[in-house]
């Protein structure tokens, strides 16, 4: 247990320190999402949408920052570590791979939270978004469980991506715009119809966004997919399922690596 926690701390450390050592990255990480967020806000303004829709865009931008971190900082990280020659050290280290992934997740969450808070502050200031939080405790719980489910999903993908070559990179970019659409990044997911919305609920971002929209913008209740408590329950189940799958896939990946001997093969 101690070595597990030490490995978590050890892997989270470079991510936390890295964020502080490269302040110029912070500028890009805040500035870039603001560009697309602003564009979507202006679309709603051009369409004379109700003001809370602009808030949906800010909320979507915040959660997208985490989703991108899950994709590029979790799912493809083992693949990336393989390319840079670090993966063999992780495999040889006297700590389970799960602890390495958990460390990456914690460090990534810290990193992304600085970005998310900046987007929230700048976005609400620039566009005068008015938020009314009806149940702060439930909101915090849903936010945290949503993050847990997303990062567990990232852990699951990390093993799969490792087994692929450049397809991993491709799959990551494929999980951007189509997922933004399916998760209802900037609009209430119910607009896609209940069946599509329910199918899209396997992406934790979908339910997390829907629940948080209800709790931050009470006027969005008519657009809600389901009760936030039910969404919290489903998100908790998704977290458990994705964590179990992540463990299974990690073992499978290790086994394949040993039998085929291709796990450290770089595609370059």
């Amino acid at each position: 247990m101690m070595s597990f926690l030490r490995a978590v701390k050890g892997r989270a450390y470079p991510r936390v320190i890295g964020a502080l050592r490269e302040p110029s990255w912070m500028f890009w990480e805040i500035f870039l999402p603001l560009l697309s967020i602003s564009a979507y806000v202006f679309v709603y303004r051009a369409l004379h949408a109700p003001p809370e829709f602009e808030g949906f865009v800010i909320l979507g931008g915040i959660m997208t920052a985490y989703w991108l971190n899950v994709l590029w900082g979790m799912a493809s990280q083992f693949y990336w570590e393989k390319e840079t020659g670090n993966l063999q050290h992780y495999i040889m280290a006297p700590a389970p791979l799960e602890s390495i992934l958990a460390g990456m997740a914690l460090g990534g969450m810290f990193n992304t939270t600085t970005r998310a808070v900046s987007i929230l502050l700048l976005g609400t200031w620039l566009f005068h978004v008015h938020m009314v939080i009806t149940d702060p405790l439930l909101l915090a719980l849903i936010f945290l469980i949503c993050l847990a489910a997303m990062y567990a999903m990232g852990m699951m993908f990390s093993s799969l991506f490792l087994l692929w070559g450049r397809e991993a990179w491709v799959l990551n970019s494929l999980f951007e715009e189509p997922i933004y659409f399916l998760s209802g990044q900037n609009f209430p997911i119910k607009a896609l119809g209940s069946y599509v919305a329910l199918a899209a609920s396997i992406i934790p971002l979908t339910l997390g966004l829907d629940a948080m929209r209800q709790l931050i913008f009470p006027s969005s209740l008519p657009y809600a997919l389901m009760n936030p408590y039910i969404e919290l329950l489903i998100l908790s189940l998704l977290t458990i399922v994705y964590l179990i799958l992540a463990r299974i896939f990690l073992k499978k990946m290790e086994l394949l690596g040993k039998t085929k001997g291709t796990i450290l093969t770089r595609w370059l």
Partner: protein
Amino acid sequence: MREHIRTIKTAMWLDYQITANWTRPITFFTYNIAKPVGASLLLLAMYYVVTGRIMGTMALSFIYVGNAFYMILGQVMMDLGWLVHEDREHYQTLKYIMISPSSYYSYLMGRAATRFLLSVFPVIFLLLLGLLIPIPYRFNYPLLIFTTLFGWIFMVSAGLLLNTITLLTARYGGSIGEAFAGLFYLLSGVIFPLSVLPEYLTKFALFLPSTYWFSLVRRSVLGVETDPFLSQLSLNLCIGLFFLTTLCFLVLSLAFYFSMDYLARRKGVLEMITTY
């Protein structure tokens, strides 16, 4: 001249191999289309939740056509941002390309040309998909061909500007590309009229070739410019301004190319590896 054309052709072939040879062509083209379709559906859904319908109005056509053609600009910018880093640090071939007798500028033009061509396919697909909405197309083919060809020159210039900057930077390749693409998306009246922007940003937008390019795209695809601000410009004036601003971008990119190339050689950073 023949040397330049040969370099461009070889660079185009190389870029296609790098981008697409990880899978079969059919899978690649499906992937190539999926991202732009996802982005368009997102905007359609936003339009639907506000208006409660999805049938063709001019506002919807404005958003749809602008976003479809933005796919070319966005993809070229984002991909070209990475190009120097990829060659220098990932493949570690930049130094060999630089010392080869062919022109590096031609090489970059070739790489940019493939990215441009590959981005045209999703646009065609999206335009076909637009028939289902339906978008009221009134194509002006000569204008569309002119707009596309000159658009390529503008995008290559902007892309090369990016590339030459990244010759000197250790990181930020992707960020600079994304920033360029994002600025064009926000400030060129791609998915909303320029009049929605604050006044100072609207004035800034008038210096961007992309603003006139998107206006020409709408005029050539929809037969009309619906942006209240840009519709005041006559077609000839719009073409003239696009030509002028593109020329400025081209001169700027060439000036940057020669100065950054000189500096990169002087500083010895063509072989720089930052394990990034």
